[in-house]
């Protein structure tokens, strides 16, 4: 147990010494790994933020049911009872007179409405569905439209669907980017470790001749790959956080111009830890593969 611990500590120290022994090399590797991890991370963060915008807007998930102008109280009661049976979520009834009153309050509308000979607005139900999946919203709207005395069912799902499709596409692109750049990180580490093995061929040969196990030789290389990857992950987190820090004020300003309030969410502590862990894991993988392949050539 103590021997095991000593060997791991020694390997870790060895790896750290090698990392800081060639600061320029290390810095360049970290920048490359950092940039490689930044792109998918930034993409992921953008998708997460967009999803937050889409999810926060309650107006999106409403279905308006407009009745025909000749619909009277019995028809309204009929719709009401049908809604009670269908249980689509919550709803409220907006009478045509009430709607007109509301409209009159809006700026500049009083005169226009005053000039109208009679109330042009229909009676309406506004449904806030419990299930906000675009597919189920679509289904609900279809059901409502099939009921009697319904003039129009309005669902703002067109753009919800578009946004959803866009988010899904964006997610896919981020996943592809992530796979691509994960491969790059593994390749970078693979090459770094290959160069190290070449540089230390004499040392490795001697160590093996006097009783070093393969684990003894590989351990510092694994640690090196892991540390380099983890530090690269931290670099990426730093880059993304800096980027989102600079983007936050203009995004808030833009949101305000559209009458909303929205703050760009940066990376959380968990995200940073995860990014570091992913970087470390990929670096370890690259080092492991490289060590397996290149150490075989040194007898």
């Amino acid at each position, binding site marked *: 147990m103590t021997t095991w611990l000593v060997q791991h500590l020694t390997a870790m120290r060895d790896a750290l010494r090698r990392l800081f022994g060639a600061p320029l090399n290390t810095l360049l590797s970290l920048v490359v790994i950092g940039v490689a991890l930044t792109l998918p991370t930034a993409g992921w963060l953008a998708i997460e933020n967009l999803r937050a915008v889409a999810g926060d807007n309650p107006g999106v998930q409403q279905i308006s049911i407009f009745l025909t102008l000749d619909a009277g109280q019995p028809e309204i009661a009929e719709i009401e009872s049908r809604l009670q049976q269908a249980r689509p979520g919550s709803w409220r009834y907006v009478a045509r007179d009430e709607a007109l009153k509301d409209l009159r309050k809006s700026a500049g509308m009083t005169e226009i409405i005053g000039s109208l000979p009679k109330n042009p607005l229909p009676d309406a139900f506004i449904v806030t569905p419990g299930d906000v999946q675009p597919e189920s919203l679509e289904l609900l709207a279809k059901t409502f439209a099939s009921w009697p005395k319904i003039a129009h069912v309005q669902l703002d799902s067109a753009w919800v669907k578009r946004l959803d499709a866009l988010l899904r596409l964006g997610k896919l692109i981020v996943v592809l980017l992530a796979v691509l750049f994960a491969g790059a990180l593994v390749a970078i580490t693979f090459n770094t470790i290959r160069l190290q093995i070449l540089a230390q061929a004499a040392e490795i040969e001697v160590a093996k001749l*006097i009783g070093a196990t393969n684990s003894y030789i590989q351990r510092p290389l694994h640690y090196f790959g892991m540390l380099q990857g983890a530090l690269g992950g931290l670099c990426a987190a730093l880059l993304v956080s800096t980027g989102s820090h600079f983007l936050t004020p203009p995004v808030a300003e833009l949101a305000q111009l559209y009458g909303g309030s929205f703050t760009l969410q940066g990376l959380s502590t968990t995200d940073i830890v995860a990014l570091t862990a992913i970087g470390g894991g990929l670096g370890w993988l690259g080092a492991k593969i490289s060590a397996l392949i290149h150490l075989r050539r040194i007898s």
Partner: protein
Amino acid sequence: MSFEITAGEMVFLTGHSGAGKSTLFKLLAAIERPTSGTIVINGQNLAALRRNAIPYLRRKLGLIFQDRKLLFDRTVLDNVLLPLSIVGHPVKDAPRRAQAALAKVGLPNRAKAFPITLSGGEQQRLAIARAVVNRPAVILADEPTANLDAASAIEILEIFRAFQQVGVTVVIATHDPLLMARLNPRILRLDQGQMSEPLCAPAANGIAS
């Protein structure tokens, strides 16, 4: 051929170039594997040794290579620390242990030096220090006095004899007649892959031929 070396013995493997001294050295250290026959060290048959057991066998042997295989980018002390690091010796105690090994071979004051600044004899002593720092029961040396002047060669030999006197088995492959004349040890002569024992100076114990 067949031969046996008992614990605590000092044996010279001799024969002219190409006789197979180095091959025998490599077979004993499991650097090369036998195609047939058996080599038994401490009851362990090297021919049947699994690959991943080889490092643990080598740790029990103090190996001194013909080309010394010193690491020239490390200090003398770091060279001696390497075997301790390999077996996972406590880091705090390692320098003291390495320093003791250096003292035993007469290099107590060269710890901070780099091997390139050492003379041939000193480099050889460093190679011995590295071989014995883990206190092996067996020392195997391949041509330890090659390219050394007579005085240095004798010093090296005295070091080996000191180890033998404290119970370490010492096997030296050499073709240096000077050494043999001086110590009058048991000599195994290799010739064309055949083994013979021309001068059985000390009691030849346990030989099967």
